[in-house]
């Protein structure tokens, strides 16, 4: 008797539902390949094209990985786009203007690796402030990071008075050349930025699946009170998660500035929305506790393929936004459906078990 209690009724549709993001990605690739080939004679799957898409995906993906941890704790980070902008501006300023030392009457120029380190630390520190605002001063994550979004963007503009830092090649006589390598460099034919996303993804997956820290992130998002009573240092873990998100965003800021060989203070505007969308498309629940890094990266690919494909098809920017919005809504509606089916199937199983217990 007992072996017969399995809910096969839902299994196939459940598997399809669970794999929906990757199915959506495959469908998108097929649709664009066919459409572009027939209407414009463009080979969507050409390696050069795929590499361009991957570069775009890396930008969204790196931010989205940091964002996923934040959302898993039940929070949100709206400041990431501004951190992208600020990080690029600080790097640009350090390369082109250096640090003016009034007392010595000179200017200090840093080596590029040191500049990169400074920017990454700055992003991490801003994330740390976000974390402190949220955990120590009890500011709601939405509001705290919204405030930080304005502050960081403000400083990005203040750094140059709103102007762009152009020509970030550096000068050999100042010993600060090499910054463009980050954006233009390749390893085994793939841009560094894509490798960085892969590296970050592997680290993040390991953290999520195999470390107590990752387990604690999921627990906090699932039930903060229970997590606290289980001895989890909720404030510390939450703060670290925002720091990680800040770090990832600063990295993206550096990559973009390096790719463009210029830093513009408006860079990264509304990128936070792409990062959130990628996480949500990948199955991360905004109420926390549910989601995966792998899902998020696939989500980032969906967004990247969608935008680039639409651009290549010549769809207007306005319609692109409409379509992106529809895709996100569809993903969330499917997510709700899956949860309802999950709840229902465990309920029916419960009932069946109870009946059997009774009849026994």
């Amino acid at each position, binding site marked *: 008797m007992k072996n017969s209690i399995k809910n096969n009724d839902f299994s196939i549709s459940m598997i399809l539902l669970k794999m929906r993001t990757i199915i959506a990605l495959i469908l998108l690739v097929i649709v664009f390949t066919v459409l572009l080939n027939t209407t414009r004679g463009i080979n969507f799957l050409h390696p050069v094209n795929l590499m361009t898409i991957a570069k775009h995906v890396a930008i969204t993906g790196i931010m989205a990985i940091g964002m996923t941890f934040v959302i898993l704790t039940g929070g949100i980070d709206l400041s990431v786009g501004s951190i992208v902008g600020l990080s690029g501006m600080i790097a640009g300023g350090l390369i082109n203007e250096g640090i003016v030392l009034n007392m010595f009457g000179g200017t200090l120029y840093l080596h590029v690796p040191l500049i990169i380190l400074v920017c990454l630390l700055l992003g991490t520190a801003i994330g740390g402030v976000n974390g402190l605002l949220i955990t120590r001063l009890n500011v709601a994550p939405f509001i705290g990071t919204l405030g930080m979004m304005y502050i960081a963007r403000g400083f990005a503009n203040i750094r140059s008075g709103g102007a762009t830092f152009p020509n970030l090649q550096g000068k050999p006589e100042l010993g600060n050349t090499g910054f463009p390598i980050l954006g233009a460099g390749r390893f085994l034919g793939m841009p560094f930025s894509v490798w960085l996303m892969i590296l970050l993804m592997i680290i993040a997956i390991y953290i999520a699946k*195999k470390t107590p820290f990752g387990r604690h992130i999921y627990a906090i998002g699932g039930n903060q*009170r229970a997590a606290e009573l289980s*001895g989890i240092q909720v404030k510390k873990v939450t703060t670290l998660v925002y720091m990680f998100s800040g770090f990832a965003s600063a990295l993206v800021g550096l990559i973009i500035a390096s790719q463009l060989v210029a830093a513009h203070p408006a860079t990264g505007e509304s990128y936070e929305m792409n990062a959130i969308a990628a996480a949500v498309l990948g199955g991360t629940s905004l109420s926390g*506790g549910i989601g995966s890094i792998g899902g998020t990266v696939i989500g980032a690919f969906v967004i990247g393929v969608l935008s680039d494909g639409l651009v290549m098809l010549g769809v207007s920017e306005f319609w692109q936004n409409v379509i992106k919005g529809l895709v996100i809504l569809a993903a969330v509606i499917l997510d709700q459906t899956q949860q309802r089916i999950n709840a229902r199937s*465990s309920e029916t199983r419960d009932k069946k078990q109870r009946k059997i217990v009774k009849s026994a």
Partner: protein
Amino acid sequence: MVNRMSDAVILRAENIRKVYPGTMALKGVNFNVYEGKVNVLVGENGAGKSTLMKILSGVEMPTSGKFYLQDEELTHLTPKTAAQKGIGIIYQELSLFPNLNVAENIFMNKELLKNKGWIDHGTQELKAKELLRKLEQDINPRSKVSSLKVGQQQIVEIARALAEDVNILIMDEPTSALSKTEVEILFKIIDELKSNGVSIIYISHRLEELIQIGDYITVLRDGELITEKPMSDVNLQWIISSMVGGEASKIFHSGKRQIGDVVLQVKDLFLHGPAEEPLLKSISFDVRRGEVLGIYGLLGAGRTETLESIMGLHREARGKIFLENELLGEPDIKSRIRKGIALVPEDRQREGIVQTMSVSHNLTLPGLWRIVKKKIHISGSDESSCVNETITSMSIKTSNPADSIMSLSGGNQQKVVFGKSLLIQPKVLLLDEPTRGIDVGAKGEIFNIMNDLAQKGLAIIMVTSELKELLAICDRVIVLSKGRITGNFGKEDISEENIVNASTIGHMTTAQRVGGKNK
């Protein structure tokens, strides 16, 4: 004197059953409400009192059974229709909107309107003022409920029920947050309501109070109606024994425990809450190896706060706690868990489990540091072996440890919460109402596990409101009342009467003062 024959039954419930997933809360209960009388309903926690009242007020639907108001059968009752029929309820837990003002709360969902749409705030406030004056409370109808003291909030709750014309008023522990004078006023109002023909269903754990105010008494136990009698026929002793049940409940106790050295010592524990009076006042006690110490007390006595303070949850707690003669430092849950203190919290859903995680991840959550290699790596094989061990030893019924915790029944979820506390290999186990909301079978299993653990030398502190459990398993019982220890009973002295008497010491004067007025 109450004469049974002359009192008309205004509300009659017949054979009410209520089934929740995993438990049957009411097993065919009959219940009568007499016109213009106070009908007292008693029973231990989980006896089904609150469930029955929720059904009568339309909040919950009964699984089966009928009820009649005068001779009209009531079906598909909702809170709104119950109110229209004149059934009002004052809940045990405050159900006010703290963000709204007093008048808005009193007239919630029965707003007084002018011009068919606009709320008539002026009249509402005037009427609210009137109601509050009747309750002898000088509360401004415009003050926000969140700014009131708990006792005043309770008064607002009562005013809310009185704002409508009620025939039947249900009061579920209305006095738990009230001071002596406020209780006196409430009793005066109950008298007034009675003389206006209003029937009152009164639930309270303060037994003296019941004897003073009640005309009829109905006893529930384990979801069944035990008996119904006029209050004049019964005394305190009778109430206690019919609540608890006659049988000597020694079923769980094995008596083979070896009680050893002191493991945990609590000295002069103080805890200040939002109210003026501290939640805990100079609590001192100790627990020994292999001992099961019970803590009993009424709502608000400070039981949960005591356990939470030992666990390190309250940073503002003052006092000394020694674990194996070592003074514990600043309150910090993580370090106390690592030193060997574990807590099974009172509210399983809110504090015990992480709903989004699997059975196995829930189990290992507080004890991850035990299976971690090089401080960061969770060893999958170590994790699954200790998960499987716990699932077997606690006999948790799950088809797969990777299944969601929400796929388990309440009793099995509770065993997971137990199991996760045990996986840290504690020296002291703190249990807060460990059998709440689980069925009798699972209760028995939980007790057997407790017994095993005590025999293996664990010190256990159990907070419970069920007297039967205290009698069944505890080696010693301390009783709290309003944040103080008012009783400490060794094995021989543990009796229902001793415990109940000690638990009301903090409230005794209330009942005595009001005494006599209602007879």
